[in-house]
């Protein structure tokens, strides 16, 4: 491991553009030392260890898929991790979608509405805010982020009842706005955009635009926004997850099941089993849960190109 080891530039040198390439060191301790940092030897052991984490992450999801295919009675009497009894997946899905006059579909539509307006709005606000924090020096700037983080530290329960009272004075409770407005604030989104904007928008570009006589607004939309695209997609995806999975505040704000998001709806179905005269529909709860997570999973898989580069570029460098 001395610096005098002869290096063989050859092919690897050509790949100087790619991260982490370097001349190969001859391996002395064959089984121990890695080939190099550049072209590391694939490790089975590491794969297995990471695989354990993978299994840990996927087992409950597998459980969900398997059990969504069972009827309620075989749900109770069979081994949790494998199929058994009649294959009732499509049957369950049909029943989930039609139970109670198709309220599940309504819940789904509600969730989409909240996500589009809530996450969309949150991303918009975060982009504007992050841009300001990154590229402008304004009075009170130091206070802004401190206040935001400080407020996030306050438990949601402190805010729940006061927000509820406030919103009901304004006539907003039991309406979609009661769910959408609180979800417009994403401190993590703000932080991400701040970092990303600082990284990817050269100040000279802005100066040039200003010199050319462009207003701040125009500069923002025409110059900065395109540069922020990957970061925007990232923040959008994260706020989408947050609004899709929103539970606590809607629980207090909404009383009419017609306006429930999917999380509240599933919880209500689960609670239904616990009432005198209520019908136990655990199989629908499970199937419904599966249907609830599919859109998000799909969104992440399809858009992974964008958010991965967004997160990467937006990370903090020291």
């Amino acid at each position, binding site marked *: 491991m001395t610096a005098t080891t002869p290096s063989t530039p050859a092919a690897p040198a050509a790949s100087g553009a790619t991260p982490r390439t370097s001349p190969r060191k001859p391996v002395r301790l064959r089984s121990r030392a890695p080939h190099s940092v550049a072209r590391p030897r694939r490790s089975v052991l590491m794969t297995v260890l990471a695989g354990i984490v993978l299994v840990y992450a996927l087992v409950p999801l597998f459980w969900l898929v398997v059990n969504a295919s069972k009827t309620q*009675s075989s*749900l*109770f*009497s069979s081994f949790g991790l494998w199929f058994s009894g009649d294959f009732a997946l499509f049957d369950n899905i049909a029943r989930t979608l039609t139970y109670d006059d198709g309220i599940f579909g309504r819940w789904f539509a509600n969730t989409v509405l909240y996500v589009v307006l809530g996450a969309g709005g949150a991303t918009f606000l975060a982009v504007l805010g992050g841009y300001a924090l990154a590229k402008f020096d304004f*009075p*009170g700037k*130091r*206070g802004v982020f401190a206040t935001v983080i400080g407020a996030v530290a306050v438990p949601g329960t402190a805010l729940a*009842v*006061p927000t*509820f*009272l*406030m919103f*009901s*004075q304004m*006539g907003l*409770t*039991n309406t979609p706005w009661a769910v959408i407005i609180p979800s417009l604030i994403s401190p993590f989104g703000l932080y991400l955009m701040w970092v990303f904007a600082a990284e990817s928008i050269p100040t000279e570009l802005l100066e040039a635009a200003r010199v050319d006589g462009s207003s701040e607004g125009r500069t923002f939309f025409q110059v900065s926004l395109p540069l922020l695209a990957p970061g925007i997609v990232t923040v959008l995806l994260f706020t989408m997850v947050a609004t899709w999975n929103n539970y606590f505040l809607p629980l*207090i704000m909404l*009383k*009419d*099941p017609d306006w429930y998001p999917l999380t509240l709806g599933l919880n*209500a179905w689960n*609670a*239904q*089993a*616990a*009432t*005198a*005269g*209520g*019908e*136990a529909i*655990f199989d629908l709860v499970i199937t419904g849960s599966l249907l609830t997570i599919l859109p998000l999973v799909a969104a992440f898989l399809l858009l992974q190109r964008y958010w991965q580069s967004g997160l990467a570029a937006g990370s903090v460098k020291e």
Partner: protein
Amino acid sequence: MSIRTTRALRAVAATGVVALALAACSSGGGNDSGGDAGSADDVAAALEEGGSLTVWAWEPTLEQVVTDFEAKYPNVDVELVNAGTGNDQYTALQNAIAAGKGVPDVAQVEYYALPQFALSDAVADLSSFGADELDGTFTPGPWSAVQQGEGIFGLPMDSGPMALFYNEEVFTQHGIEVPTTWDGFVEAARALHAADPSVYITNDTGDAGFTTSLIWQAGGQPFQVDGTDVTIDLADEGSTQFAETWQTLLDEDLLAPVSSWSDEWYQGLGNGTIATLAIGAWMPANLESGVPDGAGKWRVAPLPQWEEGASASAENGGSALSVPAASTNQALAYGFLEYANAGDGVQARVDGGAFPATTAELESDEFQGYESEYFGGQKINEVLAQSAADVVEGWSYLPFQVYANSIFNDTVGQAYVSGTTLADGLKAWQDASAKYGTEQGFTVNE
């Protein structure tokens, strides 16, 4: 720095204004906008004239009632909303009343929670609308539960006189007799568990309603209320009798550690590992829908007695329909109440599987002669109606029973998972409840 301070000051001022405004609005309480006490004539007129009503209830059989009601009174439009069951409903109701907005015209309130709403004048006194004429329409338990002082604060919707639901197949299989006394129940528990260690006579992880009902049956009166004067004594004779008997079951691990209403509970009822349920008369509907595997195996027997040969029972659950005081449609709301709980609505609900609270239905031949297929053809309503008549009189709940029940598991519940005894747990429950009562301004004696 100064700019920040100015900004902060401005923010504080703004929120201060908001806060004061809110305080002014919300301290008005729930009593202001309610209509004045009307009369029976007003009710009839309101039904004629029509209007719209919002009903918050989770009872599924009300759907049919609403349809029938709208057919009979075409000018009335009823919106039935399930705003949550039990505590969720009460929270929502209290929130709405505090905010002064979004209060429903009719709300389903369980009997144990009704005193709380009655005391704070959150629900309207229905006597002037004609409720005082309904004496005798309802069974004693529910009827006394909806009264507070001189007023009547709701009409009973269903009732839950207790009985012993048991899985006959399990008992026959192990050759054990169905117990008729609680001592016999303990014996049977031992025998069952010895014969098959996976079988328990019943499940229990600490349920406030169950415990209070059993104490009720034993003649205990741990909660006594006189206006704002409250006495809590969970060590009286009835309570102690319950604690001693039940402690035996706990000590010998004879109770399935499964929470009621969980998926494991439904499983246990279906596969015979939970052999009995001492529970309210509304249970058959739940068994039919939630435990299809148990069809034909279950039967109903009278509740085991504390004394050989006695015939005492208690109510477990059940709810009334009330009219929140903040409703602007009280007369119309009462019209709906009367229809649903003392009129044609009762039969519609019974057909849907509800257990009524009206003596007429309970004593009718048709009702009593009903042979339940799920229960192997047994005439279950005979047993259940008898239980309704046997309910011990003189029971009351605390004016803050909702809170007390919410801390039941924190206190008594600990006896189920640690070495604490039930008696100590009950004492802890008593102390915590008394502390809360004092904080809330009641005079509490222990």
